[in-house]
């Protein structure tokens, strides 16, 4: 940091900042870079790599006497399983609005949180829900049927 000795100095600015201080700028810039990269690393930590929730795939044994149109809710799961003449299908009971658990009723489903209503096939009939309830993938196996809560299928797919 050199200043021309001929320059007149003010009492308030005894040592003006040199215009080009490559060393100082490089040092500060690398510190800023190190800071931001470390921030990025630290922010990586809170985002879990593996979700700690229980397995999303589970098998379910349907009661033999399940009437057509009546929902069977496997204990501990937010899924409604139905059986009719064409086969078995599962509809998620997690409301597409804000994630409350919808309740099966005579006309379909209703959400207790914000009053969304869904018909028997999960399509929205009422309220703020932006999307129909997804149909979940059902396959034969296990103790009857295996339902995968992560895989959705087209509405109307029955096994």
């Amino acid at each position, binding site marked *: 940091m050199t200043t021309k000795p001929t320059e007149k100095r003010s009492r308030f600015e005894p040592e003006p900042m040199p215009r080009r201080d490559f060393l100082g700028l490089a040092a500060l810039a690398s510190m800023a870079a190190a800071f931001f990269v470390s921030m990025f690393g630290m922010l990586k930590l809170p985002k879990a790599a593996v*979700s700690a929730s229980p397995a999303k795939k589970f098998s379910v044994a349907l009661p033999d006497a399940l009437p057509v149109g009546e929902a069977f809710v496997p204990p501990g799961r937010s899924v409604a399983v139905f059986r009719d003449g064409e086969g078995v299908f599962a509809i998620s009971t997690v409301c597409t609005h*804000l*994630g*409350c*658990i919808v309740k099966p009723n005579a006309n379909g489903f209703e959400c*207790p*949180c*914000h*009053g969304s209503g869904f018909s028997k096939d999960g399509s929205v009939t009422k309220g703020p829900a932006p999307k129909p309830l997804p149909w979940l993938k059902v396959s034969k196996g296990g103790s009857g049927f295996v339902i995968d809560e992560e895989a959705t299928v087209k509405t109307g797919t029955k096994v």
Partner: protein
Amino acid sequence: MGEANRSALNEFWVNLKSVPSQIYRAMFRGGAPVSDRTRSSFVFGNVFLHLHSVRTHLWSLRWSATMGLGIITTAAFLITLVTGVLLMFYYKPYPDVAYQSIKDIHFIVPTGRFMRNIHRWAANVMVVAVLLHMARAFYTASYRKPREFNWFIGWGLLVTTLALSFTGYLLPWDQLAYWAITIGANIAQSPREITDAMGITQFFDIGALQREVLLGSDKVGEESLIRFYLLHVMILPIVMAMLMAVHFWRIRKDGGLAKPVDVDARVKADAQEHYPVFTEEPKKTYQLAAVVKGRTPAVGSGPENTVPSMPHLFYAELGVLMFTTLICLVLAFVSDAPLKELANPLVPENPAKAPWYFLGLQEIVSFSAFMGGIGIPMLCWIGLGLIPFLDKETEGTGEWFGGPGGAKLVGWSMIYGFATSIAVEAFAIRFGWLREWFPDIPQLVITLVNPGTVITVLYAGFSIWALKRFNSTRAGALALFTCFLCGFIVLTVIGTYFRGPNWEFFWSPSDWSAH
């Protein structure tokens, strides 16, 4: 030798006897605070007191200047800090165990129930006080130069206060807490409503990312509880303390409270009671031995009409501190903090309600998750933060409802703000909204046109009218701020008292149908 020994022993004895008085004298660097002069040196020499200026203007000491709202907020924070640390002795942040420990605190721990009640009420008092404090700063136009940055810090403090309160809401791990947080976390996911409508969710799912980082899992569980606990007892209080330090420091550095230009003509110190200490206005102040240039707020105006902060300001502060404590204790004494049954992730509460200060948002969320949860709040947030940079007028600084339009405009804005929000809500409750009339309507239309956005547009229109009518940005700001405040109150009241099971409208909770 014997004589020297005796005198040293004697001296030791004399010193030992005077230890208490010596400690007392050593505590005060400038001598004991008994005169105005030594009190002043005590204030600026004391680590806890030096955030105060040594002298306080009489204008700032009037009750109507601030109504003590800043100190009330601080006092409520201190109360939550003390009671919160006490609760941590017994609280265990693990699902089910957490619920049991709150139950223990409620039923078994000595004074536990009282402490928990105080903690909860002080938190609510703090939320209310911080909102009113913001309104005070706005209506007295105290955000103007040189206080723009402090308004900004206060804006951060508002967010931190709400976040602290919200994270504390989950900790009891009862049904109330669990479902309030589920709804809150899903609001964080609501940008999906937009990405879904645009069909880009699979490439850019910002909503799910926000939710996942907040909860640490795909639903509210043990990871979420420990995260909320960490935020509540560690991260947010540290952020809060740092912001508060800057906030207080800037009040002092920006020249105390905002005052009208002609303040000295309005307030006159009683010559009998307060002897003027300065006979001349100082022409400059020196900082860091004159190396640093710049003016402090006292340059060019004598510090007359000020009184020593000790004791005048300190009596006011202590009075407000104890008053806040009294309010919190009264509330804690008459009303117990709720504790419902253990959280059950499979059975939602009906109705499931967020904390009260978010019920206004939940009311608009019940039409569109994105607009109610993200869109409109963000708009308000950004608008609030930018106020000092958009209104650069000078008329009415430091006065209640100062500026063009004044109290009359605020009155009209209140009427308009209440009337429009009540009218739009009444319409939506009575006749339903778009989906009831057109079942196949695209979601994007509902996201753009819903009661929340309609109210916002009506308010913005009124604000523009006021801005043109008075030819002043301050008038526009007064109108807009008042309207949003009224809208917030209306929506919060509807969400709190008039929404029952399935978020249906009820005139009174006693009409709620049993579910």
